[in-house]
């Protein structure tokens, strides 16, 4: 079920009304059933995989908590991690590894006896496995007590707003809210939640889907593009993926907020960052903090000398790349980000820069944006050859400035909607989040802004747009 569909609107209204109509002690049942329905809407059999992981992690956490010895704790943590990573690896990396084995076999003149897997990747697998792993790790570290109510734990993993594309919530913050489940209907929560949902919908159907039409048309031509066309399409993809993913997060967080649940911020206008390090503090925050807490710190973080810090940055981002998908392009994407982060540490680039004149800030932001765009080429191109094709177009001086517009109407729509997004992000959301915007603006300002958003969605929204990009991860 896509957030940008009328089916979801009906589902959301029904579940929300049901939620408040029910006595608190029954609410978890409604949310669990609704979340299962939401997940099964994509492909029902994969609910079994989810249920299997829920059972493994539920029991593992309880055994870890009850275990008398460190060794026993470690064994059960390992079982939980192997179950999660095993499922992830099987569905996501089996074919990738097999393709590489095949390449190796071909180069040695052998035939590869291992068959390729021809099944769909369970939707949102990377998200819920990471959320489950964070739970058992936190129980192992003693930061939270295991949830003994199987239904509540299952709901923690399956809570429908964030089930398929995050934010990757932590047991420490979401579990207590789900356990309590006595949220009262509050006017402010409903308004803030709906406001965030509407802005997310604007980002997705107006900006991301308009940009997608242009980006797809350019990237499908690979290296048959002039330099500026390929560069411009890559800039546009940067905004497409931002609006697609942060739009999803906004709708997820907003949907939760309407029912009184607070979820973590996942994006904080990342393209205004003045360094790559700052970018990663503003982009997909729930994943970057997950990688920091459970991988970077576990590798030693910055406590083991500067070279080890650089290496840890590289390893963390390489694995972050692999988390996104099983291809060398994602490895390169992660590797480049790792190089940037390590480089900034090496050259002591300050994340919090001193007060700078506007043109300097804009210059740093533009440089950072282009460094990130270089990584997006590998993210967007389906193959390594495709990425090389786009990069060779960008650096090909022949007829460089000739911008291929394709369809003028799509181009005009795209540019004007992107400009509108930048105006909203810069003048409203740069210093305020949805909550402070609601609390600090006048009623007239608040309602006019949302009326404008709704009319823009009506007139400029792409109604048959693609599904959210991050559903595939």
């Amino acid at each position, binding site marked *: 079920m896509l957030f940008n569909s*009328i*089916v979801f609107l009906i589902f959301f209204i029904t579940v929300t009304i049901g939620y*408040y109509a029910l006595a608190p002690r029954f609410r978890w049942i409604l949310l669990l059933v609704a979340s299962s329905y939401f997940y099964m809407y994509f492909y029902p059999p994969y609910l079994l995989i989810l249920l299997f992981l829920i059972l493994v992690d539920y029991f593992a956490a309880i055994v870890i908590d009850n275990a008398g010895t460190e060794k026993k704790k470690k064994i059960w943590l390992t079982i939980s991690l192997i179950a999660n990573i095993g499922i992830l690896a099987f569905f996501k990396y089996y074919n990738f590894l097999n393709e590489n084995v095949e390449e190796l076999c071909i180069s040695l003149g052998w035939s590869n006896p291992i068959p390729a897997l021809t099944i769909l990747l369970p939707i949102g697998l990377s998200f819920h496995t990471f959320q489950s792993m964070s739970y058992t790790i936190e129980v192992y570290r003693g930061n939270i007590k295991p949830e003994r109510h199987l239904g509540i734990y299952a709901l923690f993993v399956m809570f429908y707003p964030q089930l398929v594309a995050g934010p990757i919530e932590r047991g420490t913050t979401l579990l207590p809210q789900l356990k309590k489940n006595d949220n*009262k*209907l*509050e*006017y402010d929560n*409903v*308004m803030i939640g709906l406001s965030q949902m509407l802005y997310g919908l604007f980002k997705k159907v107006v900006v991301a889907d308009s940009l997608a039409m242009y980006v797809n048309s350019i990237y499908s*031509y*690979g290296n*048959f*593009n002039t330099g500026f066309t390929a560069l411009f399409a890559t800039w546009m993809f940067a905004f497409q993926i931002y609006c697609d993913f942060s739009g999803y997060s906004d709708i997820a967080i907003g949907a939760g907020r309407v029912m009184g649940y607070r979820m973590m911020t996942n994006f904080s206008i990342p393209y205004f960052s003045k360094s790559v390090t700052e970018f990663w503090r503003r982009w997909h925050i729930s994943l970057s903090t997950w990688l920091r807490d459970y991988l970077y710190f576990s590798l030693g973080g910055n406590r083991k000398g500067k070279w080890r810090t650089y290496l840890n940055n590289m390893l963390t981002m390489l694995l972050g790349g692999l988390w996104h998908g099983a291809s060398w392009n994602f490895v390169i994407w992660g590797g480049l980000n790792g190089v940037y982060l390590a480089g900034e540490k090496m050259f002591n680039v300050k994340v919090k820069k001193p007060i700078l004149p506007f043109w300097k800030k804009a210059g740093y932001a533009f440089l950072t944006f282009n460094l990130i765009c270089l990584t997006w080429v590998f993210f967007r191109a389906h193959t390594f050859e495709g990425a090389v094709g786009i990069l060779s177009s960008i650096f090909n001086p022949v*007829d460089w400035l*000739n911008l291929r517009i394709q*369809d003028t*109407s799509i181009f*005009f*729509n795209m540019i*004007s909607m992107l400009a509108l997004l930048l105006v909203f992000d810069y003048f409203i959301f740069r210093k305020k989040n949805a909550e402070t915007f609601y609390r600090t603006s006048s009623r007239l300002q608040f*309602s006019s802004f*949302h*009326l404008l958003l*709704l*009319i823009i969605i*009506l*007139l*400029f*929204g*792409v*109604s*048959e747009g693609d599904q959210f990009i991050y559903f595939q991860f």
Partner: protein
Amino acid sequence: MVMATVKKILLVIAAFLLGTLILDRVLNLVLESFYEQCLVGQTGGKINYYLKKAKQPDVLIMGDSRAYYMLNPDSFKGKSGFNISHAGMDQCFQNGLMSILIHQKKMPAHVLLHIEPDFFMTSSQDKIISKGIQQLKFYYGTDPVVTEFLDELGPFESLKYQFKSYRFNGRVINTALNYFSTKVNPEATGNGFIPRPVTKLDSLHTEFTARNYPDGPMYFNTSATRYLLQFIRIAKENNIQVECFTSPVYYKRNIDFYKPACEYLDSLFSANQIKYIDYGRTNTSDARIRDPHFWEDSEHLNGAGAAIFSRQVASDFGY
């Protein structure tokens, strides 16, 4: 306490929806007025021009960009023509457009329809729903064929049109641009044909855009046949003579890739006694068509190339 909150929330939502509906109606009036005055451009302008200003021609050319930019009706010797082709539009759009013209009594007795074999091949076995009809959203609720096809796009499609201005979804900026272009030159549409300017970069683009064929398997698109069959049926019911052609391409067409489509089209047109020339398979007699300087890109002739091709079509079809 809870009831008071519910009441407050419902009131705000109701007021918000009411505000949206009022704004929607006002915007619809403004946009409709702009749209109806457009006589230039693909967003209604060309259709409006044909309906309001053009003399009914002997032959109406319908198709996509490869008819729009490549076939000049002024090349016809014995018959008058108008090129009502729209870039990027598929067969579903042509059916909707024909229905509109029939209902407005502006459909001539002879149509030259451009056929794109690409539309009959697809890389997915899923049912393909044609989306070109969205270009005719303005006629939702007034034309039965357009309304039927638009409703097929999704189960809640008719709900969206409760907002009147949704008919201009994705077309607001174009409508405004076309309105101002009409003010500057209301006759710019002319005979519907607009040649692509000849530039020094043409041969370069042509080589650049020489197409790659998909790696994976391709399937025959049965939904495309539905639209073409419907077009032929409506034409027969209204005594409209249909003739068809496919424009040439610069690159050498991969016949194997199109084989199922070609076989289907040949047998369909033969069974319905419809004259059909596929210039993608049958080379034109004029060798200049194979010179990259006459092409804007590998699928579209530039103005100079179009002049040669138009004479060829006029001669082959006896116009």
